[in-house]
Structures are given as structure tokens and as C-alpha cells.
């Protein structure tokens, strides 16, 4: 329990009276990699958005390293930073690749320009975009954009990274490079929650799979169990449908 990094308990969330998340309980240990799967509209994105405070919640607790994310000075304490990677990348179009990573450091962390650029360069190397640092997002491929987005999130030195379908907006050929970047991160020991529809990727990378439906966690367990001998009927039928399509 001592290495539990994220704790979600009794989380409820509704939009205009419609329950979208119901009594979610989820613990994430340090260095753990969790994939969330489930049909469209099951609340996966909403869960991630609650964790990074893009949505406010109706009830429940979300603790990061033992501190409620709703504490006033939450983001200022060490060990309380959350990185988020969006399906649509959401790079800043008016910044170059380098600026996309360095500027937030300067603006939010008040780090001086030189160190910010240095950090940014290190991360650009990490996602293998050395020759693109002066490019603008519109000059990049989707896969490259997503890798920049990952580097940008990493630059803030987060304790946990959230990925919301990081490859859904990409052509299959481009998904590979993004997966590789995430796998590299896993190797470095980053704690991650990944929402994805790519079952083989989820199976390969995760310590744990969480299956959601209708705003509830239906089943969770190790990839082996969930993908090959799930307990619940609903999980099984979802997996069947998904495999049919892909």
C-alpha cells in the first residue's frame, strides 16, 4: 500500500443529471501501467478528465500520493503532478516544437529560458524528433505531433501520465511510433493510465486491465485473465465485438 500513487474511491460524476461515472474505485501503484478499455460512451475519457481536474466531480475522493487533488495548494507540492496526453494532441499551433515543450516550463514553473530549452532538448531527443525542434505543429505528421505532446507532458516531470486514446487520430502506420514512445516510457518506470482501443498494445504493455461499461468498472485484472478468460459476460462480448472489427 505504501507505493500507492493514485487512489480513487467512490467517484461519481454526472452530466445534466445523467450518471456518467458511478462509484468508481481504482488504485494505481507506483510504476504500474493500467489500460482502461470499454465501449464508446462508457466514461473512460471522463474518468481521465476527472483525474486531471478538467471535470469536477459530484462525490468521491481522488488522492495523488495521499493528497486530495482538490486541496488548495495541490499542484505546488512535489509529487503531485499529472501529465495528460489527448487524442487530438492539442499542441499549441503558434509555438514551434521546442517552444511547445519549453514555454510551459518558463510560464508555469518560472524556469529560466536556458534551462527550459535544455530540458526541452533532452525530451525531444527522447521522443526522437531532434531534427524537428524548429518545426511548427502543422508541419508534422500526426505521429510526430503526438510524440511532441508526450514530451511536453513529460517536461513538467509528472508523477503519473494519462493517455486518452493517444493513437485514435492516427493512421495505423503512425500509431507504431507512438506506441514505441509509450513503451520506452514504461521501461523508464513511469506510472501510466492508458485509455485505448488497441487491444494487443494494451495486452503487451499493461500490468493491469480495467474494463468499463456504463460508467462502472465491470472487471479488472491482469491482461492474461481479462483478455483470455474474463469472468464477466459483458467483458467477453465486448472483446468479441472488438476483435471482429479489427
Amino acid at each position: 500500500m505504501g507505493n500507492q500513487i493514485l487512489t480513487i474511491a467512490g467517484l461519481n460524476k454526472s452530466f445534466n443529471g445523467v450518471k456518467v461515472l458511478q462509484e468508481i474505485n481504482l488504485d494505481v501503484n507506483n510504476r504500474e501501467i493500467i489500460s482502461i478499455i470499454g465501449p464508446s460512451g462508457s466514461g473512460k475519457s471522463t474518468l481521465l478528465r476527472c483525474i486531471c481536474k478538467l471535470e469536477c466531480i459530484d462525490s468521491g475522493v481522488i488522492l495523488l500520493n495521499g493528497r486530495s487533488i482538490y486541496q488548495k495548494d495541490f499542484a505546488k507540492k512535489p509529487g503531485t503532478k499529472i501529465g495528460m496526453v489527448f487524442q487530438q494532441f492539442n499542441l499549441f499551433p503558434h509555438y514551434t516544437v521546442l517552444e511547445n515543450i519549453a514555454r510551459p516550463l518558463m510560464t508555469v514553473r518560472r524556469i529560466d529560458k536556458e534551462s527550459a530549452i535544455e530540458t526541452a532538448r533532452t525530451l525531444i531527443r527522447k521522443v526522437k524528433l531532434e531534427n524537428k525542434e524548429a518545426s511548427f505543429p502543422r508541419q508534422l505528421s500526426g505521429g510526430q505531433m503526438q510524440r511532441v505532446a508526450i514530451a511536453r507532458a513529460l517536461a513538467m516531470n509528472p508523477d503519473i501520465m494519462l493517455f486518452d486514446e493517444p493513437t485514435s487520430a492516427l493512421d495505423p502506420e503512425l500509431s507504431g511510433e507512438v506506441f514505441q514512445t509509450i513503451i520506452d516510457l514504461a521501461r523508464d518506470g513511469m506510472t501510466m493510465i492508458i485509455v485505448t482501443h488497441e487491444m494487443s498494445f494494451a495486452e503487451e504493455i499493461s500490468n493491469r486491465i480495467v474494463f468499463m461499461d456504463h460508467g462502472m468498472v465491470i472487471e479488472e485484472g491482469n491482461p492474461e485473465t481479462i483478455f483470455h478468460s474474463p469472468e464477466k459476460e459483458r467483458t467477453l462480448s465486448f472483446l468479441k465485438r472488438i476483435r471482429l472489427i479489427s
Partner: protein
Amino acid sequence: MNFEIIADNLWFLLSAALLTIKITILSFIVALFISFIVGTMRCEKIPNSVEKMLSIYVEIFRGTPLLIQLFFIYYGLPSVGINMPGFLAAILGLALNSAAYMSEIIRASINAVPMGQKEASFVLGYNRFQSLLHIVYPQAIRVAIPPLMNSFSSLLKESSLVSVLAITELTRIGNLIYTRTYRAFEIYLTLGIIYFVMTYTVSVISKKIEKRINKAYVS
């Protein structure tokens, strides 16, 4: 036809045109300032009462003639103790009027910035103000520039109305020469040409800027 009158008064007219430009630029700057504040506030979560007030401001200034607004500010307000020189009243009237329209441009431009941009900056730790300054404005401005240039042109033309406050800008000088010479045709034709040259210049510049923006966005 007798354009000697124009030749005689050309210097006069051009320096008045300069005043017209000065009035336009000054009120545009003030309007820009007001419209950014109003437009931004109306995009953000603000108390309902403030939102109501801002929307009333916008509706009133868009719903009544500029001429009446100018008369009211200059001749009306002194009776409630607000007394300002004509030049100031002119700038204020023009600016408040334009800002009502321009704030809608700013609002639309801010709303045109994808929600994801604000969300990304929020997740990175930007506060509201930083997000606005570093992320939202730079993108909104690209969208806003063409319609704002258009507002500038309108302002240039509307500044002719401040002649009623006895400010000797271009139109007033025209009237003045007219009451001395009664050569309305030549005078107003010349005024028209001067105004046209000014607005045409603005529109040429505006098209250039637009092209440059589009180019930057496409390449």
C-alpha cells in the same frame, strides 16, 4: 467646376485629414482595449450580474445611432456633472461605439480557439490568466485581425460624425470651406476622394496581412 478652391485649401484639407487619422487611431486603440476586456470577460465565467451589464453595454451601443451617442456624451453628460472637452468626447464616443462591435469580434475569435487548447494549458498548470495571455490570445488574434481591420475602416468613416462636436477634422473643414465658397460639388468630391484613399489604403494593408497570416497557417 472650379477646383482652384481645392488647390487653395489643399493644405488645410490634408492637415484636417491628419487629424481625422489621429482621431481614428486614438479611438481605435481605446476601442481595442475596451473590446479586449469586454470580449474576454464575456467568454469567461463571470458573475451573472457583470455579464448582464456587459451585454447591456454592447446592446445599447449597437442599438442606437453613433450620432446620438456623441450628442449625449458631449452635450448631455455635463448636466450630470461629467464635462469633457470635445476631443475627448469624440474619442470616447467613437471608441465606446466601436468597442461594442469589436468586443463581439474578440468574443467570436476567442471562442474559435479550440477548447482543447485551453484544456491542454490547464493540465500543464497554466492559470486562467496565463492561458489567456500565452495560449488563447495569440491564436484568437489571427482570427480577429481581418474583421478588426474592417472595424478600423468603419471607424475612419464614422469619425466624420465628430464634426458635429465642432472638431475641425476633415468633414468639418469641408463644411467650413463650403460655407465660404458654396462650391459643394468640388469640396465634397474631394473629401470623398481623401476618405476613399484612406480606407482603400487600410483595405490593401488588411489584405496583405490576411495573406501573410493564411500563408503562415498553411505552409
